[in-house]
């Protein structure tokens, strides 16, 4: 098999938010630093999909937006097609936008409520390409055919479209510029089950036909497993496990990954309607950034930490677990990886 080219590589990406005091606020409120993305590294091969999973607040969307430079990164490097993009000026980066696009979680994103579908697509086609009117019409027709949308929808305003149709227009808009790499941010959330399947099938179909690469961000573990070649699991801004989709789903090494997947009920276990084993889903509540943590950030919810009688290394501030290779292209950040 021919070695595939690496299309995207993210190295030590960090994004810190400073939640500070307003210019006129009084009192002693101290400025807090929130690590939305904390030292994240991964790469993506051409025509492949990397799934990025995690709960809300894990920073997965921030990673996607930082790659597209919609949010400035705090530090780190991002290579697209071997070219570092974070150091480029806005003008230098602009032409790259035709190669990398985003499918936003919000179905209405990018759809100007006062413009018809035709005008929306026409604008997208023309942003990076000089084309004559008939060429644009041709291109729009091709796009509609690619995303399987009826031509009669061209005359509609966004609010007249159903959720599935809006999603298709959103994808068509991203393809209109000729993107090769898509950040798909929760592309199925907010859609009905039957429509979710359509969208996932469409994305896979487009990948086969056009050779696209995806960064597939989702909290729907099944969908991620279905579409991704590799999966990265994020917890509070950090990748805690990274590996082939099948390994992550069926042989997780990080306790968090296991609790994520065990929260899913497979069809088989639906038959025995027994509650999942206690402790497997971790502790209650969502982590708040306000609480300072030391060492492993999953420790407060970690069942292994409890089982191991709270070993000191897990909460030792200087030894936050780093990703390390456990073989078979599988990496995990845990002091006590599961076997």
């Amino acid at each position, binding site marked *: 098999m021919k070695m595939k080219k690496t299309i995207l590589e993210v190295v030590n990406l960090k994004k810190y938010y400073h939640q500070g005091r307003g*210019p006129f606020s009084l009192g002693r409120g101290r400025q807090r630093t929130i690590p939305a993305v904390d030292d994240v590294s991964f790469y993506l091969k051409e025509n492949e999909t990397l799934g990025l999973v995690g709960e809300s607040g894990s920073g997965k969307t921030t990673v996607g937006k930082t790659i597209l430079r919609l949010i400035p990164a705090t530090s780190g490097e991002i290579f697209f097609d071997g070219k570092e993009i974070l150091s480029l000026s806005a003008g230098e980066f602009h032409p790259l*936008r035709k190669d990398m*696009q985003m499918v936003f979680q919000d179905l*209405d994103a*990018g*759809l100007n409520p006062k413009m018809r579908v035709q005008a929306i697509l026409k604008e997208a086609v023309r*942003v990076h390409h000089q084309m004559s009117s008939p060429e644009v019409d041709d291109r729009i027709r091709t796009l509609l055919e690619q995303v399987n949308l009826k031509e009669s929808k061209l005359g509609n305003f966004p609010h007249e479209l159903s959720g599935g149709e809006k999603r298709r227009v959103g994808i068509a*808009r991203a393809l209109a*510029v000729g993107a090769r790499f898509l950040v798909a941010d929760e592309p199925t959330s907010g859609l009905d089950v039957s429509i979710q399947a359509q969208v996932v099938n469409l994305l896979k179909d487009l990948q086969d036909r056009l050779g696209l690469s995806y960064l597939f961000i989702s909290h729907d573990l099944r969908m991620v497993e279905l579409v991704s070649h590799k999966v990265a699991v994020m917890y509070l801004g950090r990748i805690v496990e990274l590996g082939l989709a099948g390994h992550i789903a069926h042989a997780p090494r990080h306790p968090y990954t296991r609790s994520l997947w065990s929260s899913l009920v497979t069809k088989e276990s639906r038959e025995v309607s027994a509650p999942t084993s206690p402790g497997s889903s971790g502790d209650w509540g969502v982590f708040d950034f306000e609480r300072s943590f030391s060492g492993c950030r999953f420790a407060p919810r970690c069942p292994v930490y409890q089982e191991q009688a709270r070993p000191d290394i897990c909460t030792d501030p200087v030894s936050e677990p780093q990703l390390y290779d456990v073989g078979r292209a599988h990496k995990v950040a845990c002091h006590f990886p599961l076997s």
Partner: protein
Amino acid sequence: MTGMKQYAQASLMVTDPSSRSMWKQAAAIDLLYVGYGLFIVSLVVLSYILGSLNFLPHNPQEMDLSLLMAPPGVAGHLLGTDFMGRDILSRLIVGIQAYFVPGLLAIAIAITLGTVFGVLAGYRGGGVETAVLYLGNLVDSFPRLVLILLVIAAFKPDIYYIMIIVGLTNVPNVLSQVKGKINFLKQKNFIEAAVALGLKNRVIIFKHILWYNCRSLFIIQATLGMAEVILIETSLSYLGFGVQEPIPSWGNMVQSGANYLLQGKFWLSTTPALAILFTILGFHLLGDGLNNILEGRRST
């Protein structure tokens, strides 16, 4: 039966929503509003044109001392004459001159500055937003009438000075609305998506934000602004600070006519008062109707 609500035959035909125009979807009442409003606006514009061409039934300044306070219909004076024997109809038509250009100026100031600051605050955010909002609050917290009287005291009672103040004090209003629109689009990830697509900032601001999403707001602001201008001039005239005699304005006509109300010469002040009433009503209904049609309040 009373209290029953009738629901029309439910249509089962597949209708393509795009084939229905915006106007058909609007409720009949909105069309009525807009129709009346447009009628008033065209009367105002017509009056302005007639006034500037001096195409009037009588000379508005010509005093006929033999016909003081003649009731309507006497000697060719359709609406009667005032306390100096001047034709009321002609003065009404010319009176619009006092508002028209100064009013447009006030509206232009409010919309231009409001848009600039609104875009600055909404689009840039951060410190600029804070600064602009503080400035807006500062302007808002000044009682407008006091500000106007201060300017009149410092300079002179000129309608242009007044209207500049009116325009400036309306800036925060427009600003916050433009900013609201931008925030709405931001919330829907619209601006982020446009940037991701590779659109230039000026395209996003001028085409998407201002042209597509703020134009209805501007139209509505303009209609309501005109009504406000007339009202403010009226109140100032009543205090004696508005347009000064002998130049007619509806405000000073009401004010001077009011002295003769007790003598039973009601048409002196009632006619311009009614003109004010119906004109303001017209502008307001136009603004309201346009708002409902353009922003789709009723159609959802």
